[in-house]
C-alpha cells in the first residue's frame, strides 16, 4: 500500500489516500475476531447489565418479601425464578443485587489496584536504583504474605463490613501484581531510543514517565486489570462465604451461598449464586485472554 517514499512524492501528492489506522483499531479488530472473548464480553454485558439495572430487573430491592403471597423456601417457579429463601425473599432478586455488589467490588478493586500498581511500577521501573529496590522489596513483602491468612485475620479483626471496606482490603493485596508487570515494562522501555529522543527534546521525568512510556504499557495493564476483576470477585465471594466479607443483609454472591448452606435440601439457594460466580469469572477470563491476544500479538498463543 505504501509506495516507495520520496521518489513518488508527486503521485502521493496527487491524491493517494492513506487509511489512518491506529494500534488500537488493530487491537479492536483482533479482539473481535476472538470468538471466546466475544462470547465472554456478551456474557459480561448481560450479567453486569443485570447488576447495573438491578432496580428495574429486581425492583423493590433485595429484601422485598411478598406478604400477600408469602412463600418461604419455595422451589423455583415462574413466580420466583430462583425460588425463595427461608424468610421468603425472592432468590432471583437477591442474586441480581448480589451481582451488583460483587461487580462493584470487582471493578473497584481492579481499577484502584491497577492505578496504584501502575504508579508504583512506573516510579520503580523508571527511576531504578534505590527507589526501585525499596518499592520492589515492599511489593515482595506484600506478595510473600500469605494473602488468604492475612485477609481472614484482617476481616476477622475488622468484622464484617460494607463492601467498600472489603474492597479496600483486597486492593491492599491486588496492586502488587500490576506493579511488578508495569515495572518490568518500564525497565525495558526506558532504554528505548524514543525515550532518549524525547529526553533530548527536553521532556522531564513526569512527561517521559506518563506521556511517553505509559501508553506503551497500557496493554498489560488492561489485561491484568481485567483479570483482576474476576479474581477480586472470587476472593470476595470466598470471604463472604466464610462470613468474613460483606455484612448481611447486603447480598453478595458469596454471602448468598453461605446463607444457602443452612438449607442444604434447597439446592437453588446455593446453585444459582454459585453458578453466577462461575459464569462471571469465566467471562472475565475469556475477555482477559482475548485482550491479551489483541493487545500483545507478539505473545499470541496458537488457538485451535
Amino acid at each position, binding site marked *: 500500500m505504501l509506495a516507495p517514499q520520496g521518489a513518488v512524492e508527486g503521485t502521493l501528492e496527487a491524491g493517494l489516500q492513506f487509511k489512518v489506522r491506529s494500534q488500537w483499531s488493530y487491537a479492536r479488530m483482533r479482539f473481535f475476531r476472538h470468538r471466546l472473548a466475544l462470547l465472554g464480553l456478551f456474557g459480561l454485558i448481560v450479567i453486569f447489565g443485570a447488576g447495573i439495572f438491578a432496580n428495574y430487573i429486581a425492583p423493590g430491592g433485595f429484601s422485598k418479601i411478598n406478604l400477600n403471597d408469602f412463600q418461604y423456601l419455595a422451589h423455583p417457579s415462574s413466580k420466583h425464578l430462583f425460588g425463595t429463601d427461608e424468610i421468603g425473599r425472592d432468590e432471583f432478586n437477591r442474586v441480581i443485587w448480589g451481582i451488583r455488589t460483587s461487580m462493584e467490588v470487582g471493578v473497584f478493586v481492579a481499577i484502584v489496584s491497577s492505578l496504584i500498581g501502575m504508579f508504583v511500577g512506573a516510579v520503580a521501573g523508571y527511576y531504578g536504583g534505590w527507589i526501585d529496590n525499596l518499592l520492589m522489596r515492599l511489593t515482595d513483602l506484600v506478595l510473600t504474605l500469605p494473602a488468604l491468612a492475612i485477609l481472614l485475620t484482617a476481616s476477622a479483626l475488622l468484622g464484617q463490613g460494607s463492601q467498600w471496606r472489603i474492597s479496600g482490603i483486597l486492593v491492599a493485596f491486588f496492586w502488587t501484581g500490576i506493579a511488578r508487570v508495569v515495572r518490568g515494562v518500564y525497565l525495558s522501555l526506558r532504554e528505548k*531510543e524514543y525515550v532518549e529522543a524525547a529526553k533530548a527534546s527536553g521532556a*522531564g521525568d513526569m512527561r517521559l514517565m506518563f506521556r511517553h512510556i505509559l501508553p506503551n504499557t497500557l496493554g498489560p495493564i488492561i489485561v491484568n486489570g481485567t483479570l483482576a476483576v474476576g479474581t477480586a470477585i472470587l476472593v470476595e465471594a470466598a470471604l463472604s462465604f466464610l462470613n468474613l466479607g460483606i455484612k448481611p443483609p447486603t447480598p453478595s454472591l458469596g454471602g448468598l451461598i453461605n446463607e444457602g448452606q443452612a438449607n442444604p435440601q434447597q439446592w437453588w439457594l446455593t446453585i444459582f449464586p454459585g453458578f453466577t460466580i462461575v459464569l462471571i469469572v469465566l467471562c472475565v477470563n475469556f475477555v482477559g485472554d482475548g485482550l491479551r491476544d489483541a493487545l500483545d500479538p507478539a505473545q499470541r498463543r496458537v488457538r485451535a
Partner: protein
Amino acid sequence: MPDPVLSIRDLVVEFKTEDGVVHAVDGVSYDLFPGETLGIVGESGSGKSVSTLALLGLIPQPPGRIVSGTADFKGRDLLMLKKKELRRVRGNEVAMVFQDPMTSLNPVLTVGSQLGESIKTHYPDEKKEVVKQRVIELLKLVGVPNAETRYDQYPHEFSGGMRQRAMIAMSITNSPALLIADEPTTALDVTIQAQVLEVLKRVQEETQAATILITHDLGIVAEMCDRVLVMYAGHIVESGDVETIFRSPRHPYTIGLMDSLPKVTEDEEWLRPITGSPPSLIDLPPGCPFHPRCFLARERCRQENPPLAPVEGSAHLSACHFSEELIGHKSKFSQEAVA
C-alpha cells in the same frame, strides 16, 4: 571571525566498566561558529557521539562521568547546568537528531502529537491549533507529502526516510541555535540518505542553526560540512576546513580513512582498510594512540603523545609528530609502507 556559538575545552568523559575505566573522550577541545556545519568523523568507539551527548547531559551517569572540561554555549557552561536548566536547553536551544529513525519515534503516539510534544514541552501554554499548524508547517518543510494526513498517522505508517524527516522536523521545532545530528543517515539506504541530507541542508539554511554532523562517512562530510574534526580513540587527531583536509590531510589516520574508501573512478579489486583494529579504550597504547596501526610510526611515537598543533595556518591542526612528512601526500601509498 565571529564569536563561536559553542566552545568546548578539554572535555574528558569516562565510563566505569567491569574491566576498568574507559576513556571515551579524552581532552577534546573545539569551537563551533554560527551557521557552520562541523563534521565529526571517526570509527565506532572513537568518542564522536559521546562528546556531543555529554553536552546535553544525556550520558547515563553512572557508569558515565564527565571528568572535566567546559562547554561554553551562549555564555553558559552546559556541563555545569542544573538538571532543570539543562532540560530547558534540550530540544529548545540545542536539539538532536538520532541515528535510528525506526526506533526514535514512540510507536503508540501519532507523529503529529510527538512533534507537538516537543513544542508543548517548552511552551506549555501554546494553543492546540497553533501547535498543530506549526507541526504541519514543519512536516511540509522537511518534505513530508500530505502533511495534514500524515499528522495523524503513527510511526509504523511512515517509511524509514519519512521517519527521519519527521525526526529532523522534531529537532527544529523550537528553532535551535545548535543542531546535533548523530549519524542521521546511517540507518537508511543510500538513495534515501541523499534525500535526508538534502532536507538537513535545507533545514539548516532555514534555521541558520550551527550544526554538528557526526558520521563515519567521509562522503557525507565532503558534501555537507564546512569544517571537520577527525577523532580517534577519544582524541581529536586532525581538524580543519573540509577542503584543506581532503586536499592535503596531515594525519596518517585521516589518510587511512580516505584510502579505505572505494573509488568509483578506479577499478579496484580490494579495499584498503587500515591495518589492525581500534585500540581498547581501557588500555590505550602509550604515546600516540594510533602508532600501532600507523605507517609512519617510530620510536618517538611510542613514547610521546603528539599534541594537536597547527600545521598550516592556524585553522588546520594535526596531532602527529611527523605531519610534515605528509605534505604533498597524494593518498594511496599507505598500506605498502606498513607491509
